[in-house]
Each structure stands twice: as structure tokens, then as C-alpha cells.
């Protein structure tokens, strides 16, 4: 037998093995029951503050399609509506718990907790991504087969942004939002052409527009201002949209179009990337070779620390923190009590908030970057009790008024 025979032998073997199984009749009921269980599952989402952002690329579709880009430079600092100083308590599943709530806006189930206020969101809203500008919480919402953008201000007023659809990214100064024209939404199931727009949040004015025959969507603004936007597509490499001249150019990372960006630093030039097998590297825009390569395998987008010194990544069910400069491993979690840190955002320069959207309960962790020790954040009683007032009205509005 030669190597050339192997494909034919494998083909024959696979077909023979496949014929040995037959379907049972319970699949429909089981699948529908499971679908309803997925729907009922509480979605936990933590906001990405403008200063501390992650970036996702949809060609790693399972997680990254959920990510909304955020922004590069530190222009806002999170206020602290709740204390983080509660003493962790050890539980039977070996993961300690804390009642100290995140200092970032979060959604647990249908409750948005932001700026010390709990807001009950309209029934059926699933918030799968958030960006926090310091004044506004901008949400990626799906409800009744419709995906749209909504905002919540400090007063707890929730508005729907009718003129820009997710996935979206928000500029560093919080003044502009890049997204899709509402008539064109994209998802991994039905990729199609889309029109990208940049809208001024306060006035609703469309300041830049780009039409494309492929399903592009914005990941984040690069650098300050609105001159360039990193955009992704479900089938193809990421690009940079130069809004000044409307040009779209392929992202040039180590002259290797196969590499996917996982996170971008605040300068918009240093990318954490992964190859086809998920191995992580750091490379500078336009450089000939990566700054370093790592054997760490990333499962999704990462989050770069506010000072650009560390990269937090989800690897398997573990949290891994790497040193940006050297690629050395700063820390790695051992066990997270069955939860996976799939999405992360930095609460401060040394602390991460990680969410597990598929967790049966909870799904919200606070992790120390230097040790990768995590505690489970127990949902606040505020979620149930803080709003004794009636939920605020939802106002359909072309723009949000901060």
C-alpha cells in the first residue's frame, strides 16, 4: 500500500462505518425541547468599557460572531457603583464566590445592572454584547428574530437605536458608532452583502458609508478618531476600512492572511493573532514576522489589559494570561468549577470579568490576572430588588441622547 492509496481506503472505511448507524424517531422532540432549554438559559453579558476592548473575528464563528468591537484608547474610567471588597467564600465546587458586583454594566437574564441601578429589560430581549462609554451602555440585542442596537443611559432609560444595527463598534471618544444599515444584518447562517455605516451618536448623522458585496461588519475603530475601522467577514480575512477614502484593504499581519486577530492594543497596531490551529502570536501591523509565537491555543477573542501589558485568553475551559511583550505565561487558571471564561473584559488593570454565556447558572467570574484565581460572582439581590420602581419605558429613537 502506498500513501496514494490512503484517501481511497479512508473513504471506503468511512462509508462502511457510516452505514452501520440508523436514526431514531425521537430526534425532533428532543431537538425542540433542547432548543427551548437553550432559549430559557440565562444569558450573562458584561459590558466592554471603551478603554478595555477585545476584538473578535467571525471566521472563528462560534464565539466571535457575538463580539461587538470596542475601542482603543483610554478615554473613560469606570465609576464604581458597587464595592468589590467582599470576602470570597469557598464553595463545594472549589470555586469561591463573592457578592461584590462588577463595576461594569452587566446583564444577567433580563436585568441590566449599570451605574448602581438595575433596569428590567423588555421581555424577550437577549443581550449578547455590550459596550460601555462611561455614560451610555450600548447593547447588541436579539428579540423575536430581530437583532438591533439599544442604549441605556445613567437614568435607566432604554432606547432602541433604529438607524444602526449590530454588530457594532464604538469610537474611542464614545461619539461615533459603526454598524450595519438596519436593512442589512449578518449572521453566520445567512451571510450576505451589507452596508457599513458610521453614525454620530448624538445627532444620528451618517458620517461614513461603505457598501460591500460580502457580509462585512465592524469589529472596532483602530486608534483614535474614525479614520479606520477593523472589519470582519464571515467568509474571508479581516480588512481595514479607511473611512476617509472608502477603501477596504486586507489586514497585513506578518504577510500571512491566514492569521486571525484576537485582540488589538490601544494603539491599534499591535495585534494578538491566532493561526488556523489557534496558536497565539503577537504581531505588529505591517511587520514581516510575529513578535513572538506561543504554544497557547486560544478558543476565541482575547482582551488586552488597559496598559497593553497583558493579554487574557480563553483556552479550553481555562483562563490564560500572557505577557504582551515576551509571550510568557503570566498565569493560567486550573479549575473554574465547570465554567468557561469565554468572554472577558478588564475591570481594572489587574482584574478581569469573565462571562460564560452557556453556564446553567451564574456564568460571571472575577479573575485576578497575575494569579488567574477566579471567584464566582453571585447575582446581586439588587437584580431582583433594586428596581421596585416600574421598569423604564423603552423609547424608539433614531439616536441615543447621552
Amino acid at each position, binding site marked *: *500500500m502506498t*500513501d496514494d492509496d*490512503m*484517501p481511497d*481506503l*479512508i*473513504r*471506503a*472505511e*468511512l*462509508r*462502511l*462505518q*457510516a*452505514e*452501520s*448507524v*440508523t*436514526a431514531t424517531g425521537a*430526534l*425532533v422532540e*428532543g*431537538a*425542540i*425541547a*433542547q*432548543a*427551548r*432549554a*437553550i*432559549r430559557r*438559559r440565562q444569558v450573562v453579558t458584561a459590558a466592554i468599557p471603551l478603554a478595555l476592548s477585545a476584538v473578535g473575528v467571525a*471566521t472563528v*464563528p*462560534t*464565539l466571535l*460572531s*457575538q463580539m461587538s468591537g470596542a475601542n482603543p484608547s483610554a478615554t473613560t474610567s469606570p465609576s464604581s457603583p458597587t464595592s468589590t471588597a467582599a470576602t470570597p467564600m469557598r464553595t463545594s465546587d472549589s470555586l469561591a464566590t463573592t457578592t461584590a458586583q462588577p463595576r461594569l454594566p452587566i446583564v444577567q437574564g433580563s436585568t441590566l445592572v449599570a451605574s448602581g441601578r438595575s433596569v428590567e429589560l423588555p421581555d424577550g430581549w*437577549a443581550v*449578547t*454584547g455590550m459596550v460601555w462609554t462611561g455614560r451610555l451602555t450600548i447593547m447588541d440585542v*436579539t428579540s*423575536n*428574530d430581530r*437583532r438591533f442596537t439599544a442604549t441605556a443611559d445613567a437614568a435607566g432609560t432604554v432606547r432602541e437605536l433604529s438607524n444602526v444595527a449590530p454588530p457594532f463598534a464604538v469610537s474611542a471618544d464614545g461619539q461615533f458608532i459603526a454598524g450595519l444599515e438596519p436593512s442589512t444584518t449578518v*449572521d*453566520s*447562517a*445567512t451571510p450576505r452583502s451589507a452596508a457599513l455605516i458610521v453614525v454620530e451618536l448624538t445627532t444620528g448623522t451618517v458620517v461614513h458609508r461603505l457598501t460591500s458585496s460580502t457580509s462585512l461588519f465592524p469589529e472596532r475603530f483602530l486608534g483614535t478618531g474614525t479614520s479606520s475601522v477593523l472589519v470582519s467577514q464571515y467568509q474571508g480575512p479581516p480588512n481595514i476600512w479607511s473611512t476617509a477614502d472608502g477603501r477596504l484593504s486586507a489586514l497585513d499581519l506578518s504577510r500571512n492572511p*491566514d492569521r486571525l486577530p484576537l485582540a488589538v492594543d490601544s494603539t491599534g497596531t499591535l495585534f494578538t493573532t491566532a*493561526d*488556523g*490551529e489557534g496558536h497565539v502570536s503577537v504581531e505588529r501591523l505591517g511587520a514581516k514576522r510575529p513578535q513572538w509565537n506561543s504554544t497557547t491555543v486560544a478558543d*476565541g477573542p482575547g482582551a488586552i489589559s488597559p496598559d497593553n501589558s497583558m493579554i487574557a485568553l480563553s483556552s*479550553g*475551559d481555562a483562563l490564560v494570561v500572557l505577557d504582551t511583550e515576551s509571550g510568557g505565561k503570566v498565569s493560567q487558571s486550573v479549575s473554574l468549577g465547570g465554567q*468557561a471564561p*469565554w468572554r472577558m473584559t478588564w475591570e481594572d488593570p489587574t482584574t478581569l470579568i469573565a462571562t460564560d*454565556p*452557556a453556564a446553567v447558572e451564574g456564568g460571571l467570574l472575577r479573575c485576578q490576572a497575575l494569579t488567574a484565581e477566579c471567584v464566582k460572582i453571585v447575582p446581586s439581590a439588587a437584580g431582583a430588588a433594586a428596581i421596585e420602581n416600574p421598569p423604564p419605558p423603552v423609547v424608539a429613537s433614531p439616536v441615543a441622547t447621552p
Partner: protein
Amino acid sequence: MRVPASWEVVIDASARREEFEAFVAARSGALLRTAYLLAGDKHAAEDLLQTSLAKTYLAWPRIKDMQSVEAFVRRTLVTTNISTWRKHRDREVLMPLVPVLAHNPRTDAVDQRLSLWPHICALPPRQRTVMVLRYYEDLTEAETARLMGCSIGAVKRYCARALRTSCPA
């Protein structure tokens, strides 16, 4: 493992359920066979297919035609299988025995084929997925890459490694 936003939507329209039931009745056999080859175990294959069908049911309103449905399910099978493996890779997994093969120049092709399944089951999930998509589903490298969400180069690497690993003696 990860739940995209689009999967959070459910419309319990009866028409959708009827369409969904018709699709499952027509295609569940073929899909289960693919799931079996991906998962390497019948019970795991049924779980994998059920999960993939549940996700498909949630995404049904956005899937425009039956061809897209099948493509969606296959993609979901692939991603869910790899994700499941990632989540549980630290657990003990029962695998078929992989025979220790001594080189035997007289071994004919039939014997070689019969000995391949344990080797295929023992492949890492991405390599096994490439084998199934390339040699069972007869997809091109580009189609395989698109379905797996990776590059064509990665597909080539997985394929080469899998062939090298699967080749007895």
C-alpha cells in the same frame, strides 16, 4: 459550546415546526451518519445531532432554503463537535482499541481498510473532521476550510497529519 446571538431566538410558529419535522424526517439518517463519523460513537453522535438540530431550529427563520438548512446543520455539527471536545478533553474518553501494527508487506488493501477505523477514531477532532469532510462528504479543501472556520492551509496540514497518522505500518 458557544451560543451565538442568532441562536437565542425562538419563534414557535407551527409552520416552522412542520417544516423542521419534515427536514429531520428526510435528512436525519444522513446527518446521523456524518455525526457518527465525527464523534466516533453512536450515543455521542445522537447527542451531537440533537444539539445541532436544536440550534438549527432556533435559527430556522433565517435559513432561506432547504439546501441552506443542511449546510447549516453540517456546519453546526462540526463546530459543536469540536467545541464539545474542547470542553471535555480533560475527561476520560473511551476509545476503540488502537492496535499496535507491525509492518507486514503481505497485508492486502482489505486488511488495511479494516484496521483503519480505530486509527480514525483516535485522531484529534480537527483531523478527524477533515477526514470526514474531505473523504466522506467529498468537500473540497476550500469548502472544508469554510465549514470548519479555518484556513485552507490548516485543512491541508490537518489532512496530511491525519493521513500520516492513519496509515498503518
